[in-house]
């Protein structure tokens, strides 16, 4: 229990003093995760809309698989990305292993199914509303997707935030592909894992609280920003 209070106290202290090391790894966490989020959203959301809009033979199976992939074990993702990026692997020449780029790739793989699944739910519901109208207007597939994405943008924000949370809290994969190298690929979660291994649970918890605080802050900020729009009731 003392670890918990120590952790809280340390977290406050680290934040209050703008501990330079903390700032460095927190900034790296944010940079990596936000990059991954942008890329993943750009892939997942149109995909989710396409799955909502198009009826094809394997649609439901693909949705089921997407749901299943939400639970992709991060370690496995990390391994596969490692194998691909390692010098013996097909993309070895790019020299991406143990760089933030590799971490972004791993995070993208992990959060694309999550974002797509959550987004798909809202898109599908809106599509049930819009279906008749858009069909009757002979709207092209691409226009349907754009209309749905635009009119459901608030729910998509939730999906993106879920992806953000998952990515920033993830450790298994980026540990393998990033290597937790000091001043290069160390982020909040890998630092937490490190301190845990060292047995410094208080510091690990402190970093954890900073991480959770960061995630909550981003969420609240976004919710607060999207408030004005909410007034319009949709």
């Amino acid at each position: 229990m003392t670890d918990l209070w120590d952790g809280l106290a340390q977290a406050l202290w680290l934040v209050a003093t703008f501990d330079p090391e903390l700032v460095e790894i927190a900034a790296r966490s944010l940079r990596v995760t936000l990059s991954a989020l942008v890329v993943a959203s750009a892939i997942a959301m149109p995909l989710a809309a396409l799955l909502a809009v198009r009826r094809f033979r394997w649609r439901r199976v693909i949705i089921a698989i997407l749901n299943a992939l939400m639970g992709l074990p991060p370690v496995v993702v990390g391994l596969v990305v490692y194998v691909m990026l390692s010098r013996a692997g097909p993309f070895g020449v790019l020299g991406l292993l143990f760089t933030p780029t590799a971490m972004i790739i791993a995070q993208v793989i992990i959060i694309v199914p999550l974002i797509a699944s959550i987004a798909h739910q809202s898109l599908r519901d809106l599509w049930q509303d819009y279906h008749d109208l858009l069909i009757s207007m002979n709207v092209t597939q691409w226009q349907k997707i754009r209309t749905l994405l635009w009119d459901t943008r608030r729910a998509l924000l939730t999906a993106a935030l879920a992806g953000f949370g998952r990515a920033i809290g993830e450790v298994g994969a980026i540990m393998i592909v990033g290597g937790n190298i000091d001043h290069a690929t160390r982020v909040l979660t890998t630092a937490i894992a490190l301190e845990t291994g060292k047995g410094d649970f208080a510091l690990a918890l402190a970093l954890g609280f900073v991480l959770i605080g960061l995630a909550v802050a981003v969420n609240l900020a976004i919710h607060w920003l999207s408030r004005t729009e909410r007034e319009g009731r949709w």
Partner: protein
Amino acid sequence: MSDLFPLTVRGATTRRRGKVLVGPVDLTLSGNGACVVIGPNGSGKTTLLRLLHGAARLSSGTIDWACPMAKARRAQAFVFQRPVMLRRSVLDNIAYPLIIRGTSRAQARAQARDWAERVGLGDMLDRAAPVLSGGEQQKLALARALIGQPKLLFLDEPCTALDGSAMREIEQILTDAKAAGTRLILSTHDMGQARRLADQVVFLLRGQVHESGPAAEFFETPRTEQARAFLKGDIVE
């Protein structure tokens, strides 16, 4: 207009879980003017309209336009019994059909403003469409359907939620459209409206076309017992 019709329907049927909702329907529609589909609740008016429009799946039978299906679809618009409101402003809802056809945003909005004025929504352009009152939603749906200048307009009970004067205005708009060559296929429970608008009548009963023909003839001398009962407002068995 002439390139859509004649429309030939042969044995068109819609089934859901084995149950026949509508059909088999055999029908030929040609020429100009309005075709009014009438019949008791649940007789299949909505389903038939959607079927003709291609919005419901045909379980068997054929529906043939005088031109290729894709072309025919593009020349049609549909006002649903429960209007669908896009989660946008009134103006953006009405402009939507133009925008997806590639009209510039400014031009689309200018036209949309015109149409909003014509159906009586001129003073609520910026309101969110989903909060409109029932009647306002119907007006919006109509303006949105007409703005694309369809050659064929389907209307599923388009005036149910309208007050007396709005109904008259909308009927005037529809009559004008008809005169300008737009073909109408509409369903209604309002026999007065049916008489005012119809050139041709299709009387549905339990999913099948029970009687059809020129409007004047149908209303004056309905051929079947059931049509007579229906026109009197009696229960049709």
